[in-house]
């Protein structure tokens, strides 16, 4: 009779293997960690619950630093309007920088001092000059490349919103930082997307604005921004709307209370609601000094021009507009309207990503899908080769068969773990699994040789030999873990996955499967059984 108490490791091993098989094959036992939806394109179609990374499912990954500079150790005024003046002064001092590209942040619980960020390609010297111009102490400020953590979080959130609203399933956006924290990268991974799509996504800021293009005097026009992303509270779907000039693509929006009030005030002040202002827009052909246009822009590009409608003008005059705050953004084409709706919903990206300083990986889904079974098959063939060598060496089924079963059970447990943790498997993980089979069998060989040097006469002899074997295994395991740990910490591409799988495999092996193999051998070999 097998005593459960002295064989608890074997029992635990069996339980874990069965549990892992369940996690792998029972539909719906998908990841308990992570947010990847069960119906995403990469997980679907396979017989297991394993998640696959880009290399094995196809798609595009872009990893890039954020464009911008941060000045730390500055002291900002607590008054919000003073701060906005500073932002405007800084923006005016720098070429091609608008005040939307300058962000002033007061110190909060996470940061020790106030910061000023500029999200454009300017040199530190230029930035210091601009800080000086705005009356900030540029000498005591430390200017560094990159942006603050708060901005990075904002970028991740906005990009996630964007990829989701564009209908890419299984996309992931995250921040990857180097050890020491001197460099940070935003990583955007989109399954089944092409490079150009992902590029457009991260390159465009999605800053939507409405400009009033109106006369300053009898012969000249000027532009004033009357609405931005921040003034908008709700966005409806893009649609075609019948108007005076036929059907036009529009995005109906609801403004915030302040946004509505300031918009109405600006329209009245610029004269849009007067008889001269209504429906008086021939942009870009009209005569300067007699043009009242509203221009929708996206990232400073004109996507729609239109005049003030009569209904809206009278609604503003009566004060009705200020209670409903509903406005209709017009665009030139339906695709622009859809794009704007997405941009408004996801929010504007505070800064763009510098793809030229990052890296790009794209793989066609058909090739990746081919890699998937082939890489598993490679692992299987390698395992079979190991089996053959072990069988040829020992020629005793009593030793060889449990050895292989144990080594393979390590891989099953790791696969089960990957499936539960929602780990996206890539080629480097598969290499890690093969490495685990290799080290696992090595240690089992040590145990088998140690235990079987002479006939095992009793349980006690077995135990002492097993302990001796374990000293070597423990030492070898420690060196493997130490050798792999730099990779688990350094951000060296996909190698982190490989290192984590190998380290986990060694731990599972040393703590569980290899002692269990010892128990099995003891049961099979000691005389009193």
């Amino acid at each position, binding site marked *: 009779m097998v005593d459960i108490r002295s064989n608890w490791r074997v029992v635990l091993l069996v339980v874990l293997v069965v549990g892992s098989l369940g996690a792998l094959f029972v539909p719906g036992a998908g990841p308990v960690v992570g947010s990847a939806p069960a119906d995403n394109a990469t997980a679907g179609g396979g017989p297991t619950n394993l998640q696959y990374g880009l290399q094995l499912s196809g798609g595009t990954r872009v*990893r890039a630093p954020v464009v911008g500079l941060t000045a730390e150790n500055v002291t900002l005024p607590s008054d919000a309007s003073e701060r906005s003046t500073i932002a405007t002064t800084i923006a005016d001092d720098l070429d091609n920088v608008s005040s939307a590209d300058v962000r002033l942040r007061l110190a909060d619980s996470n940061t020790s001092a106030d910061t000023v960020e500029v999200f454009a390609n300017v040199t530190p010297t230029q930035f210091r000059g601009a800080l000086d111009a705005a009356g900030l102490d540029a000498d005591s400020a430390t200017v560094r490349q990159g942006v603050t953590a708060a901005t990075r979080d904002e970028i991740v959130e906005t990009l996630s919103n964007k990829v989701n609203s564009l209908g890419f399933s299984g996309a992931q956006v995250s921040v990857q930082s180097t050890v020491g924290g001197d*460099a940070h990268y935003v990583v955007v991974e989109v399954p089944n997307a092409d*490079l*150009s799509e992902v*590029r457009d996504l991260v390159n465009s800021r999605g800053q939507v604005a409405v400009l009033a293009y109106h006369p300053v005097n009898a012969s000249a026009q000027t532009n004033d921004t009357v609405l931005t992303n921040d003034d908008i509270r709700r966005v409806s779907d893009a649609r075609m709307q019948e108007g005076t000039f036929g059907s036009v693509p529009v995005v109906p929006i609801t403004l915030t209370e302040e946004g509505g009030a300031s918009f109405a005030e600006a329209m009245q002040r610029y004269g849009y609601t007067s008889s001269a202002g209504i429906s008086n827009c021939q942009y870009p052909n009209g005569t300067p000094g007699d043009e009242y246009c509203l221009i929708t822009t996206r990232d400073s590009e004109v996507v729609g021009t239109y005049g003030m409608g009569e209904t809206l003008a009278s609604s503003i005059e009566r004060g009705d507009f200020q209670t409903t705050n509903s406005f209709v953004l017009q665009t030139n084409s339906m695709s622009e309207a859809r794009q704007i709706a997405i941009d408004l919903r996801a929010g504007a990206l505070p800064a763009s990503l510098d793809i*030229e*300083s*990052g*890296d*790009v*990986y*794209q*793989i*066609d889904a058909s*090739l990746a899908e081919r*890699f998937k079974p082939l*890489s598993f098959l*490679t*692992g299987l*063939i*390698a395992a079979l*080769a*190991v089996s053959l*060598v072990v069988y*040829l*060496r020992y*020629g005793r089924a009593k030793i060889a068969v449990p050895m292989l079963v144990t080594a393979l059970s390590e891989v099953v447990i790791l696969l089960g773990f990957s499936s539960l943790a929602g780990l996206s498997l890539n*080629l*480097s993980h598969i*290499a890690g699994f*093969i490495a685990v089979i*290799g*080290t696992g*069998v*090595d240690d089992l*060989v*040590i145990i088998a*040789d140690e235990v079987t040097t002479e006939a095992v006469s009793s349980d006690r002899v077995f135990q002492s030999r097993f302990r*001796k074997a374990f*000293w*070597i295994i423990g*030492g*070898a395991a*420690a*060196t*493997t*873990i*130490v*050798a*792999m*740990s*730099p*990779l688990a910490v*350094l*951000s*060296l*591409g*996909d*190698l982190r996955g*490989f290192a984590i799988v190998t380290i986990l495999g060694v731990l599972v092996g040393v703590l569980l499967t290899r002692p269990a193999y010892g128990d099995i051998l003891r049961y099979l070999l000691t005389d009193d059984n």
Partner: protein
Amino acid sequence: MPSFDVPEVDFTRYSNRQLAGVPLAVLALALLVLAAWYVLNGTPVSLGLEFTGGTELTIHATSAQAASQDAVRQAFSTPASAVRSIPSRPDTYVATFSSGADASALQSQARSAGYEVVSTTSTSATFGAQSQRFALLGLLGSFVGMAIIVFVLFRTAVPSGAVVLSAFGDIAIPVALMNVFGIELSLGTVAALLMLIGYSVDSDILLTNHVLRRSGSFYESVDRAMKTGVTMTVTSLVAMAVMAVVAYAFGIELLTSIGLVLVFGLATDLMNTYMLNLSLLRWYKFEGVSR
């Protein structure tokens, strides 16, 4: 039925000098190759795209006239620094461009010339330089960590030093062989080298442990350690060789290069463990201790 037995070697026939001479000579040769490479190319190993920066496009020709290396070169307005075909995948080419090329533009050029873009990898020079630094840090860190563990395990200078020296050879010789066989240092091969650091000391630890800590004569201990150790290393070697061959046939380059580097390293390990490490241990056991 063939069987695999570890042969018993009569080490008494060879002097320590003879035994250690071979691996030390190979190590010196390897270091010479690395030094020569450094003088000629500025780096001791050829660095892959992930470390130098650049763009690599894997493209598949959809028409017969596009299926040649010359046609691939002509498809791009930026001159490719290298074009090669993948033997296991018909009509598939890899075109490499130096850093600074625009990956999207290259993709569209390839598409308009009638190629399917199968995969694209692009790394900026700054990103590559950073990866280089990290890879070096990783290799150094993991080697130093391994050395510390070995010294903690044995707590005596000569045997621990012997293990570390032989592990150093296990890394240096495969790196030199990578140069000889034209394998570039990539993230995959760095992983393989790190794995070697962990893998290759197993048999050294086993040998040192048997000699220092077990009863029985030196040669009895060595015989027993060899039986186990050679089995271990050969098993891993076969697994990696099979992986390299199968992955090559399937066209999975990452697994091929990991497999090859490990085959080099494990073969080196057989030599280093049972010639270099063994002779140092024997010297320590018979002469070093009594002094």
